[in-house]
């Protein structure tokens, strides 16, 4: 098992830069998510780790060994492709044995190994079937099996659930995570689905426009977003951004939001100009005593909670409140914010201002 360290890696395709200098570390045994919208460079990063692309510059360390210019065959990394990439002209058994025979394993051992892996994945009964007729889930299992069978140092997975339908996806996600927990192998997993990332990942790297926006545990990324992009991309509904104009200084614990003084985690840096007050919907309460007033535009009932859309002096925002709380459309209500969860952003750079909330996270980013 292995630790993977990515250091200042960059990839250019001609004039187009797919990945700008990026660094992060994947610890041994981690289930590591590469998250971002399509075209953000996450797949290219994954392919560079696997050796399917060679980086333009930067290093990749696998267990301390620099491998960035090595062909995939010398990296001991398995890869699960989005379209599964099963060999269409072979049956399941041949697909599974392909990597083993490639590395010259004796036949008997191959057979034993395949039986073992088939047992793990529950695909013993389809071993002799051609892959053409398999269901999506079975193909997924075979693709996984082909990766597992080699006992590689690490697994790379490129949206492996992307080709499955929604219902089955959740099931496979659980299965995958359970498998990982059992095997404990380092796994790098690319997805554009933030829920999947939050649900499965030990750690997440969020990428956008070829750069790493943030890198951390799901909680850190959710609660302490480093950039407005991350704050917006993660969570549904996403974080409310209330723009305001003003000046803040290090050490300040409140800001002025359209004349309403709202507490924030103690700021560690100052800024001036167009700023953003970022707060997640569930950290907003309807509070008649609050002087910050907004009118209810709409409500959306979600069972235990409801989403209320409000028109505030700083623009529209959404609050997630208990379902049994009354919010009538057209009514004016007072709002209060959980001060210690608020993040202040500099609108121009999109960056979060350092504060007592996020200083630990931002420092290691």
């Amino acid at each position, binding site marked *: 098992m292995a630790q993977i360290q990515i250091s200042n890696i960059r990839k250019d395709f001609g004039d187009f830069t797919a990945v700008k200098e990026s660094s992060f570390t994947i610890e041994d045994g981690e289930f590591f998510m590469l998250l971002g919208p399509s075209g953000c460079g996450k797949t290219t990063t994954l392919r560079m780790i696997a050796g399917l*692309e*060679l980086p333009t510059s930067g290093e990749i360390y696998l267990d301390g060994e620099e491998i960035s210019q090595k062909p995939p065959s010398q990296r001991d990394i398995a890869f699960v492709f989005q379209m599964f990439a099963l060999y269409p002209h072979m049956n399941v058994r041949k697909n599974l044995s392909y990597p083993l025979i490639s590395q010259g394993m004796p036949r008997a051992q191959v057979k034993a190994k395949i039986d073992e892996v088939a047992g793990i994945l529950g695909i013993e009964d389809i071993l002799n079937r051609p892959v053409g007729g398999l269901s999506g889930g079975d193909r997924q299992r075979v693709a996984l099996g082909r990766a597992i069978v080699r006992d590689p140092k690490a697994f790379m997975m490129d949206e492996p659930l992307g080709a499955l339908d929604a219902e089955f996806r959740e099931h496979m996600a659980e299965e995958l995570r359970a498998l990982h927990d059992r095997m404990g192998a380092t796994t790098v997993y690319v997805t554009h689905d933030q829920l999947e990332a939050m649900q499965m990942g030990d750690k997440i790297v969020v990428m956008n426009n070829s750069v790493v926006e943030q890198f951390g545990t799901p909680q850190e990324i959710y609660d302490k977003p480093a950039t407005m992009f991350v704050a917006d991309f993660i969570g549904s509904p996403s974080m409310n951004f209330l723009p305001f104009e003003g000046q803040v200084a290090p050490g300040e614990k409140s800001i002025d939001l359209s004349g309403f003084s709202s507490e924030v985690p103690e700021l560690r840096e100052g800024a001036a100009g167009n700023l953003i007050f970022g707060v997640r919907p569930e950290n907003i309460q309807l509070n008649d005593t609050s002087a910050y007033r907004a009118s209810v535009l709409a409500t959306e009932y979600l069972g235990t909670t409801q989403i209320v859309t409000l028109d505030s002096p700083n623009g529209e925002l959404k609050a997630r409140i208990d379902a049994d709380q009354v919010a009538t459309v057209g009514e004016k209500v007072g709002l209060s914010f959980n001060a210690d969860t608020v993040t202040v952003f500099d609108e121009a750079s999109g960056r979060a201002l350092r504060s007592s909330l996020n200083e630990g996270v931002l420092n290691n980013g």
Partner: protein
Amino acid sequence: MSSFSVTEPSKRIKWFAGTMVILYALITMIPLAWIMMTGFKTPPDSISYPPKVIFEPSLEGYVNLFTTRTRIAPDDLAALPPPETWYDEIVRDRNMVIAGPSKFGERFVNSVIIGFGSTFLSIFLGTLAAYAFSRFKIPLADDLLFFILSTRMMPPIAVAIPIFLMYRNLGLSDTHLGMILLYTAVNISLAVWLLKGFIDEIPREYEEAALIDGYTRFQAFYKVVLPQAATGIASTAIFCLIFAWNEYAFAVLLTSATAQTAPPFIPTIIGVGGLDWPAVAAGATIFLLPVMIFTILLRKHLLRGITFGAVRK
């Protein structure tokens, strides 16, 4: 190094592959180039040995291709008024005068009439049948389709005898109509198969919308389906045309003068005494040009046509 990925061949392999393919292409072009060169040789140059690679170009082959000539005695030749045109002059240099136009023009026109006529008919009937097979439930459709395809396997000579007899009785021998019908029958299997593939790919929803809009089936067919299938029809047409253009066996057996196409004619172009290679080469060149141009224009569609629509990705 900078833009390497595992499926992208390395520069060295690309260089090697490029060199080999270009080498092959050049070698494969030699015979063609030789045909075209020979068209511009004089008859003595064309049969000189060793063969002449460098020679003084002449249009004699082209003049001979389009004319018939009579040899006359040098004394009589001297008595004639001076030549009026450059081609008269070329012919006079060989102690001959132009007697009239050759048959090449007629044969070429026959090729055009029969080639395009049968192509049009194949496409017309083929499109109808392909549309029906693509859109309607036809009983035994698969068997019918296989039947249509299997007619392509038949050696032409296997049916040539009765066709010869049949055409003799019906008066279709050596007629444009007879040849058009025959080539259509040969081409139609290809046309149906290719066109069915193309039409299958046009979403049904388009016509269904048109039907609901109040179009009849026919209207929906030619106002909606045909424009959509235009590229497919064009590339199928090229394949039909190339076949009809180049066909030889039936042309030899079933035509003699009125409907004979160029392929049986070109190899037999005879000069005054002996084969006239420059004229043969000139004829071959002129005859090749249309298909060469089509090939270059439609190279994108080649693959599809050639694989009989079997490759459908």
